[in-house]
């Protein structure tokens, strides 16, 4: 399939092959040169977190060759992102745009997709519905699978059985990670608890540091998080000599001693795939979702403190998740107020729409939603 996208192969003289493939999809002006693909980040692209994960995906695409990769960072979820997309299209000839922040979707990206119906838009967040334009799409990963594995490793490795979770907002995506982490930990240690602290927003470095220190002072010895940049949490944990599970990207460089493992996005694999399919003129996938099985998420390599028993158990579950034969949210599950939220005998698989509305913390989580 390589010939479909590569400009090099075209130049090398495999013109017949190349021409058929290229003629299929790209708008006229882009045929002669590399297709321009835009990436837009809501924060700095070197944040050791959410935005870096996307930038790594863009970097993988750049390495592949055959595409002109355009990047813009620190673009707020306002008219600014509309104008950035439009500028990429009008001034740089972008044929595919990746606005990577959740809040870029509606109204901004939807509006632009209607206005530029020849350009493809792929958004990170998994929001597309059939009312939205056909040239718009949205993708997301079941990263709670990796938080579940984080939990297993944390449950085995923690000496106090007290785990900590620093979270931005009590919204379904975040709650799902907290709950998966806790369920994983209880698999390893049924008495494990997760103390959760909500900071209120996606990027609150000072509060995140305070929260981490506060948790450590209460006896927590493994922390993880769901904020845009885990850098502060990971560094604070390392400095205080406790253990940490990463999120978004691999942060082991920030905590060579205490880093256990991490839940990572695998945009390096997805973005080249999506770009190739666009360049090949294939129909835009409107909704892309996947977990370990589809290669949308991955885990960090184990750190030095993770014992054999923990590795074995986590690897075993990971193999089952990768095969698609394991259900994390399997009844009976109670919330931390004692109500049954998933009844005995009910399996809520990854694609179950009910999980997208999650509004509870499972038993074992210390903390409240409001």
């Amino acid at each position, binding site marked *: 399939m390589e010939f479909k996208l590569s400009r090099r192969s075209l130049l090398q003289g495999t013109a017949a092959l190349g021409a058929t493939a290229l003629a299929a999809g790209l708008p006229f002006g882009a045929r002669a040169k590399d297709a321009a693909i*835009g990436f837009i980040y809501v924060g*700095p692209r070197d944040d050791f977190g959410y935005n870096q994960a996307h930038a790594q995906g863009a970097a993988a695409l750049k390495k592949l060759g055959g595409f002109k990769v*355009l*990047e*813009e*960072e*620190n*673009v*707020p*979820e*306002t*008219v*600014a992102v509309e*104008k*950035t997309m*439009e*500028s*990429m299209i*009008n*001034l*740089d000839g972008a044929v595919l745009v990746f606005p990577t922040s*959740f*809040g870029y979707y509606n*109204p901004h990206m939807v509006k632009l997709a209607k206005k530029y119906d020849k350009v493809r838009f792929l958004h990170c*967040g998994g929001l597309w519905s059939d009312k939205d334009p056909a040239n718009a799409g949205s993708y997301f990963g079941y990263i709670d699978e990796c938080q579940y594995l984080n939990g297993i490793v944390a449950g085995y490795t923690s000496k106090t059985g007290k785990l900590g979770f620093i979270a931005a*907002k*009590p*919204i*379904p*995506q975040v709650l799902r990670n907290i709950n998966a982490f806790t369920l994983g930990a209880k698999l390893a240690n049924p008495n494990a608890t997760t103390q959760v602290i909500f900071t*209120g*927003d996606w990027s609150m470095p000072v509060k995140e540091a305070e929260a981490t220190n506060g948790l450590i002072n209460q006896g927590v010895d493994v922390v993880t998080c769901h904020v845009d940049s885990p850098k502060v949490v990971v560094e604070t944990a390392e400095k205080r000599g406790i253990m940490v599970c990463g999120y978004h990207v691999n942060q082991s460089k920030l905590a060579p001693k205490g880093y256990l493992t991490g839940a990572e996005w695998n945009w390096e694999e997805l973005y080249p795939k999506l770009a190739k399919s666009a360049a090949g003129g294939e129909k835009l996938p409107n909704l892309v979702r996947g977990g370990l099985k589809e290669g949308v998420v991955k885990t960090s390599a184990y750190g030095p403190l993770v014992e054999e028993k923990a590795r074995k158990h986590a690897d075993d579950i990971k193999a089952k998740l990768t095969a698609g034969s394991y259900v994390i949210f399997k009844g009976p599950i109670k919330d931390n107020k004692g109500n049954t939220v998933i009844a005995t005998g009910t399996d809520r698989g990854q694609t179950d729409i009910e999980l*997208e*509305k999650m509004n509870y913390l499972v038993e074992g989580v210390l903390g409240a939603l*409001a």
Partner: protein
Amino acid sequence: MEASPVRIDDSAAHWQDILRGATEAVAVPVLAVLAALVLFGLFVTIAGVDPFDTYSLMYAGAFGSWFSWQNTLTRAAPLILTALCCALPAQLGMVVIGGEGALVIGGLAAAAIAMALPDSAPLVLQIAMAIAAMAAGAAWVALAGGLRHWRGVNETIASLLLVYIAVAVFNQLVEGVLRDPASLNKPSTPHIGDANMLTTIPGTDIHWGLAYGVIACLLAYILIYRTTFGFGMRVAGGNVKAARMVGLPVGRLVLVACGLAGAAAGLAGMVEVAAVHGKANASLIVGYGYTGILVAFLARHNPLAIVPVAILLGGIGASGGLLQRRLGLPDATVLVLQGLIFIAILTSEVLYGRLPWLKRKPS
């Protein structure tokens, strides 16, 4: 000056003075911006980028085409209104930096009133939203003004701290009682409805917020320089004791100036809700209020100068993306330029009355 010969000469001298003043008012900031651009050129040269490439890209991104102009003007629109929030109290010598809070509270009030009046005609609803937003913003900044007047609380600190309270109130309500249950992962108020959205200025894709800003600046200019009330503001700003001595109602001046200031920022919040997002959510809190302070200071608190200055900063924002994409410069580059312009303009204050070719010739 000797005993003046004839009246007509005086009048000529008078007009010369006005011309000289106007030329100075334009020349000094233009020189300052040029100086900042030269320094910025040095900066990008050190960063390994050709400064002339940078300038030409900036021009292309900000003003080089109709698309770029619309980009620039769209970004300038909210800044004009938030700049007024700083510039109006500045006439009284007050430094109010809490425009962000009034914008956030204004946006919240606009979204709340839209929820309360679900079946109104679009125009009625838009007017109600504007009034609610302006009233809420006005009350918010007037609170800082009142604290200053009656309790002697520093208005700069008070207005800044009120921003944090505004954001907390906003988040509490948007994630609580005002939340649209369908907004799962990005808590928002319900959408106001497409029919109720503010439209764009015909022939452009710029929303009406820009026109509101320009009108508000004109009104503010008339208020400050063409009314007794404005004269009172400026007297109190010059010397508050003297103002009290001559019987000016300083308290009322403070409250009204702060109220109008807050109303301007509140209206900016309403425009964000009614023209951009269709709902109130965390995307309202992006720092327009703070950039407005920069605009007001660069405009030396003159409402008419706010418009071109906001367009200049909008243009810098619009061209920033191109610098990142084409030259690989980090986003912070644009902040460096903003900072350089700010320092250059503040430093240029010393040039007033000192430019040799604009000096009044000794008679």
